[in-house]
């Protein structure tokens, strides 16, 4: 089993949180996390960062405003 350093863990963290890390690397990750509270905190905050970005950016999809729709159609029609 590979025993990763903090740097190696963070290099592959995106694959780890996506569940796309090879099994032998996952074992190494878990070995490291069992011994490194600093990386445990980093992994948790990395996951929270992704969800925080999603929560902060959540907006409903609205129809294109009628005036903009009309303006775009007029522009395109005039270029025919």
């Amino acid at each position, binding site marked *: 089993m590979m025993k990763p*350093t*903090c*740097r*190696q863990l*963070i290099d592959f*963290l*995106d694959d780890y949180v996506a569940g796309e890390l090879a099994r032998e690397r996952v074992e190494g990750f878990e070995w490291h996390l069992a011994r490194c509270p*600093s*990386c*445990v*905190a*980093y992994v*948790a*905050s*990395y*996951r*929270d*960062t*992704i*969800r*925080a*970005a*999603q*929560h*902060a*950016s959540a*907006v409903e*999809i*609205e*129809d*294109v*405003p009628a005036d*903009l*729709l009309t*303006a*775009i*159609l007029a*522009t*395109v*029609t005039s*270029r*025919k």
Partner: protein
Amino acid sequence: MLATEHDDALVAGLRAGDSHAFEKLLREHGPRLLRLARRFLANEEDARDALQDAMVAVYRSVAEFKSGAALSTWLHRIVVNAALMKLRTKRRHPEEDIEQYLPRFLEDGHRREPGTAWAESADSVLEREELRGAVREAIAKLPDAYRIVLHLRDIEELSTAETAEILGTTKNIVKIRLHRARQALRTLLDETMK
């Protein structure tokens, strides 16, 4: 009718110069595309202009659309390019260097600055407007190349392959930029969330 058949019919209408087909495309895809433009451009007028520029480009270049390709991905690509053009003409300050926000390591591979757990969670962001504002401000500080990937992958939830196609780059570059964008955003949020 399958989604691809529906899109093929729309594209065929556009190629034939059918203005009804164009209006249909605008009504169906416009809302999502306007939301995308608003993600990159804080100013509403700029977002509207970017959508308008993009839709004119769609109308002009529909002959270049390859049958069988994903219409939505092609439209996203055109809107992202229009938004980027607008961003570049509007930028007043040079972009920040992302390196300053990435974790630093000692020679033995340990972190230079030990990480501490966050007191606030992502759920707090959902509940509190001031935190949502802080997160949006932090996202806005990311350099365009990273911010756009973060938006497309983590917020619009497009795949790595779709994002690479929209940006005209490789899946590997998308993965690298996304990981760096998340790490930088984590650093930018550290003080707020600790």
